């Protein structure tokens, strides 16, 4: 084993044994991605409709901004511990924490997406005889899509970086390496786990950035 823990981490990653089996890197990565996707999805089901409603009607905006601010301020590790004490060890507690973590970005993304539409454009759409639903789905959402995806991007990066906490209360994911390494003072393994989380977060961030660019409405960006 290498003396330098960083080089040790590279050795750890280079070991073919780590890349197969039920506790291998591919499985742990898939688990990690699964937790992230589930957390963001559940949060989106709650936050996106609320954000669209707030953005379209302008109602409860103060409440939404306040709630998002409070949710942002909550310490995720504390939440995971709290939820684990309430619902027990397993996936439910960390998922609840991830949902709480993802909601502020998604909420802000959804309402700023709708709000970003030029009021004159929305007024014209209404005057042409679009229903409120048509204004939302055919004007406001298409025009604000990249901001909405921006919210998804922010939420995803935050959750993917925090999803290692699932291992803290007994679930899988890349956090396993980190907490195992922590328990046995195996620093190369800890660092390797952290590097994997970092790479995953960067890859997702880039992928969603690309999606954000692709969803910018045609006609509003320079050809």
């Amino acid at each position: 084993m290498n003396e330098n823990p960083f080089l040790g981490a590279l050795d750890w990653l280079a070991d073919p044994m780590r890349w197969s089996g039920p506790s291998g890197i591919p499985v742990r990565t898939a688990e990690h991605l699964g937790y992230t996707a589930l957390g963001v999805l559940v949060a989106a089901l709650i936050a996106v409709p609320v954000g669209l409603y707030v953005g379209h009607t302008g109602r409860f905006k103060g409440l939404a901004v306040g709630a998002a601010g409070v949710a942002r301020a909550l310490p995720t590790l504390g939440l995971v511990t709290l939820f684990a004490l309430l619902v027990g060890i397993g996936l439910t507690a960390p998922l609840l924490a991830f949902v709480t973590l993802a909601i502020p970005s998604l909420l802000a993304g959804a309402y700023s997406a709708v709000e970003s539409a030029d009021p004159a454009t929305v007024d014209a759409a209404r005057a042409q005889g679009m229903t409120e639903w048509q204004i939302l789905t055919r004007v406001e959402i298409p025009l604000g899509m990249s901001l909405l995806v921006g919210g998804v991007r922010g939420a995803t990066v935050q959750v993917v970086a925090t999803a290692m906490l699932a291992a803290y209360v007994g679930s899988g994911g890349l956090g396993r390496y980190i907490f195992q390494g922590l328990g046995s003072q195996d620093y190369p393994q800890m660092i390797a786990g952290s590097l994997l989380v970092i790479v995953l977060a960067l890859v997702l961030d880039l992928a969603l950035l690309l999606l954000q660019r692709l969803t910018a409405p045609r006609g509003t960006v320079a050809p």
Partner: protein
Amino acid sequence: MIGFENVRKEYPGGTVAVEDFSLEIASHEAVALVGTSGSGKTTLMRMINRMVDPTAGRVHIDDEDVAAMDPVVLRRSIGYVMQASGLLPHRTVLDNITTVPVLRGTAKGEARERARTLMDTVGLDPDLADRYPAQLSGGQQQRVGVARGLAADPNILLMDEPFGAVDPIVRDELQGELQRLQRELRKTIVFVTHDIDEAFRIGDRVAILRPGGRIAQVGTPQEILADPTDDFVASFVGADRGARTLHVEHVDGRDVVVDADGRAAGVLAGADGRLGDGGAADGDAAAGPGAEALATEERPR
């Protein structure tokens, strides 16, 4: 026919946009509502398609109270053209024009075919069909706005300062095209503007509004110019500054019309359109400084 009956609009907080307004607009008539900002002209126009609901009084179309109509259905039956066009920036010219017909359930192919015809009607190059609004000039955008307003073949066309944001030369061109269109289509047009010259050009009748939607005078441009009811109207149409007071001078055998400042405004023609014969005898004597220039250059106003 559009009727306003004792219409009032008061906003929460007590701001009164329109105090008590009544006016009948005949079918196929173009009426220009003209006034300064705060005269309530846009508010009044938007009551017709229920973009604004009056606090009191009623608005009716062909004797049917608009308050009893579904606003969405009502709006789809009325053309609406606004300042800065209000086009959907993420849709092509063709898709913008077909917005209302598609909302009304017209098949897309049919709507597109009609949209291409309309592009021709409003003087748009067919090559622009697949462009986005941001790729067009201001004048072209306004033409798309007019085409969109006409796309569902509405009886009523509401126009809210539609040419306010384009330069004077393009505005003049668009006003001329609207006059030509109106001669062909005979829509009922309600045209909101703060420009009295535009109101006189577009409106069969013109309603000059004071703040709060109070009518200072309603009439044909000729009636208003011939007999402004009060100083407010006289000042609004420019009669008090002499801009509307013209007299005839004889220059080189022609009748030249000159305004109060002595600037040439044009050449007087007979009812048959031929240039008037002012008589050679007194022509030279009456030539003013402006008229002289006109006689040599045939300078338009």
